[in-house]
């Protein structure tokens, strides 16, 4: 009897989460290396007692947009943008995390770190720039040089299925359990550039309108359903009265 109400509820709950995802994308429109996401809706079939099948809506998973963000020139020697599939490797308390945010800097010891101070891993561990070295240059294949010679090469990680990666705060990705970390091939480093967020303002705005409208539609459907039930109750009770 109340199935229609539950179907609308399933739609509205999913839309609520959809809005949250959109809001998060828009909030991160200027976050370097950010990857946008959208929900993946699916029909969810339930059986009723009388054998009918009812289809509800569920946001079963999410689709992460892994297309590269726009690349902006900054001319800052420690800004790197990656061109091609792959990630920089970050050391977070002994565990590896992966990022596309190439806004790097030096810490007090001269190690190359992310903007939250976590060490960037080279092929032989953290990369150190000795004191007094200047004119840092990073070649296309990730070799870091300065006035005092070579200091190591950046490590690039790649995954067969990037969609399995889990997101963590601060633009970091974590590999899923048992996910194999490969060495990235065909990746190029662009020094003096940054990869910005891949969220497209216009698409996000139209999606926002869609979600709001779908929500209103679902609500008006809920209202109609409420009206229908009220009518039914009234008609039935009138029948008894006669």
């Amino acid at each position, binding site marked *: 009897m109340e199935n229609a109400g539950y179907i609308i509820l399933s739609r509205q709950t999913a839309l609520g989460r959809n809005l949250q995802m959109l809001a998060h994308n828009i909030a991160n429109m200027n976050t370097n290396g950010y990857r946008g996401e959208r929900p993946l809706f699916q029909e969810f079939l339930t059986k009723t007692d009388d054998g009918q099948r009812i289809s509800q809506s569920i946001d079963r998973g999410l689709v992460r947009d892994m297309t590269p963000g726009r690349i902006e020139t900054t001319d800052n020697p420690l800004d790197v943008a990656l061109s091609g599939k792959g990630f920089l490797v970050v050391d977070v308390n002994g565990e590896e995390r992966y990022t596309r945010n190439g806004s790097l800097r*030096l810490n007090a010891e001269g190690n190359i770190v992310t903007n939250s101070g976590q060490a960037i891993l080279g092929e032989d561990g953290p990369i150190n720039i000795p004191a007094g070295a200047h004119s840092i240059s990073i070649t296309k294949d990730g070799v870091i040089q300065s006035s005092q010679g070579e200091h190591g090469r950046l490590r690039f990680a790649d995954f067969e299925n990037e969609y399995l990666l889990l997101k963590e705060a601060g633009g970091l990705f974590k590999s899923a359990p048992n996910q194999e970390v490969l060495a990235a091939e065909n990746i190029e480093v662009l020094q003096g550039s940054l990869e910005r967020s891949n969220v497209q303002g216009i698409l996000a705005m139209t999606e926002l309108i869609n979600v709001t409208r779908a929500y209103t539609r679902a609500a008006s459907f809920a209202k109609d359903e409420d009206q229908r039930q009220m009518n039914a109750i009234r008609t039935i009770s009138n029948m008894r009265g006669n």
Partner: protein
Amino acid sequence: MRALNIGATGMLAQQTNVEVISNNIANMNTTGFKRQRAEFGDLLYQNLRRSGSTSSQEGTVVPTGVQLGLGVRTMATYRITTQGTMRITDNPLDVALNGEGYFSIELPGGETGYTRAGAFQLSSTGTIVTPDGYTVQPGITVPTDTLSISINQNGEVSVRQPNSTTETVVGQLELALFPNEAGLEAIGSNIYKETVASGAPTTGAANTQGFGTILQGTLEASNVNSVEEITSLITAQRAYEMNSKVITSSDEMLRTITNLR
């Protein structure tokens, strides 16, 4: 409705962005000013449905799961220490640094400050000081009967006195180099202070290993690029507007719910 709060974090972040950009624009003509940029990072994620969890009795696995983010925060304001453009002033006590390094100055409390703004002056006693009157290290005093002052590329200050055909060296400017100059703390008046993040300074003379050269009669202008700042300002403002639309939309959806009954 978490989207309301997420929109708010977005607006706050963009507000910081606009503040940083406006400070850059305000200091476009400040000698030795280094522009800053705001950097953002995404906030925590909620795992509503973990990827890898089973989705049916047959054992099929959710490939991606549902992770909901909670917004954005300002991670850092990063100082970009690229070289500013050189402006010729022909004033003998204006010096610019071409390359790495900072002039050391003695702050009133006895602490050492660092600056790139080389618009120096003479105090009443003939000492080379900053426009605020702080002594430039190591404290060089110019004799009162000086005819002309010259500062060479290595930072050697020499003077010419009456009845003398040669120049007398009166001192050498001291420079400091930091492992991470972006980590210095700006205390205003173009002065920076050493922090844990910047690392300890190595002092030395100009034109030696790692240090830049000194140009007399020149000032280093700010490294603010007006075109770049204005475009960043436009992006920041648009992002701010879009985040406000998120808030309006969430509000509209909340109103829809309230109007249900």
